[in-house]
């Protein structure tokens, strides 16, 4: 006899008998309700209901399924992991969250507890930042998946009472020329996914009027079955309007778009592998985007915040109402009563459980003291947004859900927010790799042009121009620098009208290094994000982690994840850059295989005066070019090796104590006005970075690599294209040169050349290695993906 019984109620509702259910029966129940709960969790639920001596309802089981999903609860990062070096009691606590608790910086306003991380901007204002992943939906429906990813992260910012001021996006695709015949069933071609994702983000960000100021586009074979979409948002808030003061009796107000059948089981789907059937089975899990709806909500919430009318706020994302209401109540030690028939629907008939967990987009949940309700509803009406009171917060610790007068769920929050912890063990063995051996190319100029044209280095103008990066009139350093549209290291924003204080936004990511060693991959990503921020003049840097990984139930995937998390702690601790928020996306597996282990680090820095920020284009004939940092023979995972079809083994490492000292000196040099241009060395190393500086500024450059500070004496091509961490190029005018050199004393740096002529020339001693025109270099860089001259 089935354990699931249809109730005698005038709507679709089921109760489930869990009494003494066997493992097989539990799995059967989970399958017929579409739950993603594992056996350990199902048993915990069964035991709970046997203790309470009652049947479970479908609404209740669906709530556990949502709340306990990897997507919502991050159970891998909170789980207990046995490693060869001892037990890691939660990666979040032991590694990522530990940096901020040890450093305890006074400028961290709210960290790892709300919808976004928040840091001080000045005495009165703070900046909120959040970066999300939206990989699974984008693989199934690229346009909608990417658009709703951005929509979701913007709501995270609204969910801390902040006004969104900028977006970021980092996208990873399979090669655009991937052969169709190699594509397995159920996997969409990278070029189809590319155009859909790029359009989706553009459509949402442009329509809602938030500039997209920073990001990256990356191509690798290992993204063919698993596209990666990171969407981030930055917001500005007044600290005295950050209100978190929900009391029993306050009302639950649901606002925004109507609730429908789109986005049912989104988080369950996001916490599973993609298969051939994902398209058919999971299409309804992807939501439909309506940016104008969110634009209206944004205006209304800004007004409500200004008038201080709400006592709490959160967005509806994964898990829909179920997560929003339960989390909000739990955060304030309260319970809640919700009447689901008050939720406006866009579908004709929906079962209570569907209303409760639907992830329809553009919805927010507010807690409003009863006396403010009329004014709040008026503000929403003025902006032409629907808003309804759907319940109230209560004392006690349980959430009671009703539909048409019938109780359909009663959830104990203590139980709901303490799911069984996962216990896993890891094994990670370094892959067997070797360093390639090949002759030095005859024509290094030709090699440089091929590198400039490599997909991961070539201009992304064709993507960047699709996104409005100027709207709101606050983008001081733009993603494309100057009329030649060179690659900025990040963006600088001026968020306040009456202050020159600004913020820097930059990122770092090195997925190919992860194929060699996840620890050094993470260390490199972190250094790159900080390095880019330093190049713009940023300091007092806060960082965010976004992991995209394969199935953590495989020991090797999880092993890599633990190593990468450990690197995050080790480096961030020395750099003094706390993690303030993060988000992981696991289970990125497809018929093509696992995703390349990808850690995105986003860095948010402060500049005291935006007018002192430095851009990467060479400025002045006659000034000198210096390099900061040491070049080693570290080309494992480099773009140069990739040109030859190699991966290599010599992944770039990092000595964080040495590096951070050089960065501090550079920041001081910028404040003193010694520096005219600054650019970080990343993919393609010295050769690519120097060429980018030259053609962006439209000025010739002569470099002599015999002055390059190196470890050992690497071959010329390896010195030019090594991707060692911790290096930047700096333009200094003659009159400031001695002051600059004095300032940098004790760090590794050297003068390498001069800005003169109209060609790009690299030599060793008297021997010319590269002699190219700027036009040839910029053409090589701009042509592959399309750009304008």
């Amino acid at each position, binding site marked *: 006899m089935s354990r699931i019984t249809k109730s005698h109620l005038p709507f679709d509702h089921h109760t489930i008998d869990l009494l003494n259910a066997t493992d097989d029966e539990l799995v059967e129940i989970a399958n017929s309700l579409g739950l993603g709960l594992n056996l350990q969790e199902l048993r915990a639920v069964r035991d709970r209901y046997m203790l309470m001596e009652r049947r479970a309802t479908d609404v209740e089981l669906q709530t556990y399924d949502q709340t306990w999903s990897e997507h919502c609860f991050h159970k891998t990062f909170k789980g207990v992991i046995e490693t060869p070096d001892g037990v890691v009691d939660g990666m979040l606590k032991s590694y990522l969250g530990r940096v901020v608790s040890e450093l305890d910086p006074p400028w961290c306003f709210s960290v790892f507890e709300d919808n976004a991380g928040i840091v001080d901007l000045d005495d009165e204002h703070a900046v909120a930042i959040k970066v999300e992943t939206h990989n699974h939906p984008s693989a199934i429906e690229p346009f909608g998946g990417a658009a709703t990813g951005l929509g979701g992260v913007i709501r995270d910012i609204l969910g801390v009472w902040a006004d969104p001021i900028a977006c970021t996006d980092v996208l990873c695709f399979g090669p655009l020329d991937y052969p169709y015949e190699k594509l397995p069933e159920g996997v969409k071609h990278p070029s189809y996914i590319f155009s859909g994702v790029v359009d989706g983000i553009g459509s949402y960000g442009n329509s809602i*009027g938030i500039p997209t100021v920073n990001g990256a586009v990356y191509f690798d074979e290992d993204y063919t079955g698993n596209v990666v979409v990171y969407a981030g948002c930055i917001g500005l808030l007044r600290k005295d309007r950050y209100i978190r003061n929900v009391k029993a009796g306050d009302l639950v107000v649901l606002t925004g778009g109507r609730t429908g059948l789109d986005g049912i089981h989104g988080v369950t789907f996001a916490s599973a592998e993609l298969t051939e059937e994902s398209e058919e089975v999971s299409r309804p899990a992807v939501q439909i985007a309506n*940016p104008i709806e969110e634009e209206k909500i944004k205006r209304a919430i800004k007004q409500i915040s200004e008038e201080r009318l709400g006592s709490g706020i959160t967005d509806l994302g994964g898990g829909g109402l179920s997560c929003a209401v339960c989390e909000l109540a739990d955060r304030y030690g309260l319970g809640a009563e919700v009447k689901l028939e008050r939720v406006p629907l866009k579908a004709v008939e929906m079962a209570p459980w569907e209303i409760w967990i639907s992830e329809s987009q553009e919805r927010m949940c507010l807690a409003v003291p009863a006396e403010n309700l009329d004014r709040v509803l008026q503000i929403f009406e003025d902006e032409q947004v629907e808003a309804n009171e759907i319940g109230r917060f209560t004392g006690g610790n349980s959430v009671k859900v009703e539909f048409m007068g019938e109780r359909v769920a009663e959830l104990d929050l203590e139980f709901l927010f303490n799911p069984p912890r996962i216990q896993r063990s890891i094994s990670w063995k370094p892959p067997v790799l070797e360093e390639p051996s090949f002759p030095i190319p005859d024509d290094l100029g030709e090699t440089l042009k091929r590198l400039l044209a490599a997909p991961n280095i070539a201009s992304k103008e064709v993507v960047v121009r699709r996104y*409005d990066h*100027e709207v709101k*009139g606050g983008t001081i350093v733009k993603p494309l620098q100057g009329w030649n549209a060179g690659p900025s290291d990040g963006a600088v924003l001026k968020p306040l009208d009456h202050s020159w204080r600004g913020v820097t936004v930059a990122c770092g990511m090195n997925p190919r290094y992860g194929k060699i060693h996840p620890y050094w991959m993470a260390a490199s990503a972190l250094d790159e994000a900080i390095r880019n921020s330093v190049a713009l003049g940023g300091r007092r840097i806060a960082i965010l982690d976004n992991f995209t990984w394969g199935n953590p139930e495989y020991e090797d995937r999880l092993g890599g994840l633990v190593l990468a998390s450990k690197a995050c702690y080790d480096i961030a601790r020395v750099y003094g850059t706390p993690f303030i928020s993060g988000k992981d996306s696991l289970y990125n597996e497809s018929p093509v295989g696992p995703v390349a282990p990808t850690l995105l680090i986003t860095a948010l820095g402060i500049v005291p005066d935006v007018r002192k920020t430095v851009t990467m284009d060479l*400025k002045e004939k006659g000034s000198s070019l210096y390099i900061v940092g040491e070049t080693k023979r570290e080309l494992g995972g480099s773009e140069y090796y990739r040109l030859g079809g190699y991966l290599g083994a010599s992944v770039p490492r990092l000595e964080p104590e040495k590096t951070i000292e050089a960065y501090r000196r550079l920041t001081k040099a910028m404040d003193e006005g010694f520096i005219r241009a600054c650019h970080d060395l990343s993919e393609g190393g010295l050769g690519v970075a120097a060429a980018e500086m030259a053609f962006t500024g439209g000025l010739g450059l002569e470099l002599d690599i015999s002055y390059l500070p190196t470890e050992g004496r690497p071959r010329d091509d390896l010195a030019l294209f090594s991707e060692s961490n911790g290096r930047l190029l700096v333009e200094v005018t003659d009159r400031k040169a001695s002051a600059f050199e004095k300032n940098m004393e004790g760090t590794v740096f050297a003068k390498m050349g001069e800005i003169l002529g109209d060609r790009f020339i690299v030599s060793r001693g008297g021997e010319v290695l590269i002699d190219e025109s700027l036009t040839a270099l910029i053409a090589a860089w701009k042509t592959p993906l399309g750009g304008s001259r």
Partner: protein
Amino acid sequence: MRRSDIRVLLMRAPGTNCDAETVRAFQDLGVQPRLLHSQRVFRERNLLDYDILFLPGGFSYGDYVRSGAIWAKECEYRIGSEMEEFVESGRPVIGVCNGFQVLVETGFLPGFEGRAKVPQAALGNSTHGYQCRWIRLKKVNKGACAILSGVPEDEILRYPVAHGEGRFILPPDRRDEYLRRLYENDQLLFRYAREDGSFAEGNWPENPNGAFHDIAGICNPEGNVVGLMPHPERAYFGYLMPQWSREEQPSEYGDGRYFFESVVRYVERKF
């Protein structure tokens, strides 16, 4: 009238998004900008209390049907006669980007014989899709547009564009006639130009959207209704210009200041 008494109405609809930077520009000039939801203007019918009407850029109502079309019809239906009265009184009406599209959809631009019942031009799909980029403009007006008399003719203006639909086109069967009239009435305002000052001649990216005759902005025959696709408000301050960091001493203001300063001075003198 006194500058501090000048009242600017910035009207917005769901999806309007260039209002903050426009308000900032007017505030910097010492006038009183007021940002109001158009529903409120429809309710209060107080359009004529203002001296300047500004329709900012964005994606009003998602730009469904055609860019600006829904908001245009709404304005026409709710406050069409007040808008006509406002225009006839000679007060400046300015539409940037989506605002320009609204002024074309409502028939105020080009408005050869007053407001037209059906649009006489269109701002269609751009040849290269959505583009956010800085472009160069030349002012080509001979004087009919008195409100922009303060914008220099000899200088090349640098403003950004950011749109997917902004390609100025005229009906094919009347194209030559309409272009002749635009010239006769001195209604051409801005044309896309190259760095050397010559016109873009339809070449991308100097002409970013494929606009007919490189037209970036026009006015009505009376010269007080102005529409343009590029964004002067995003070029108002010096540090917003694309190459400010190359200058030893970056200037405080950018090329967009001419535009706003000129409109404000006109109202100051005329009323």
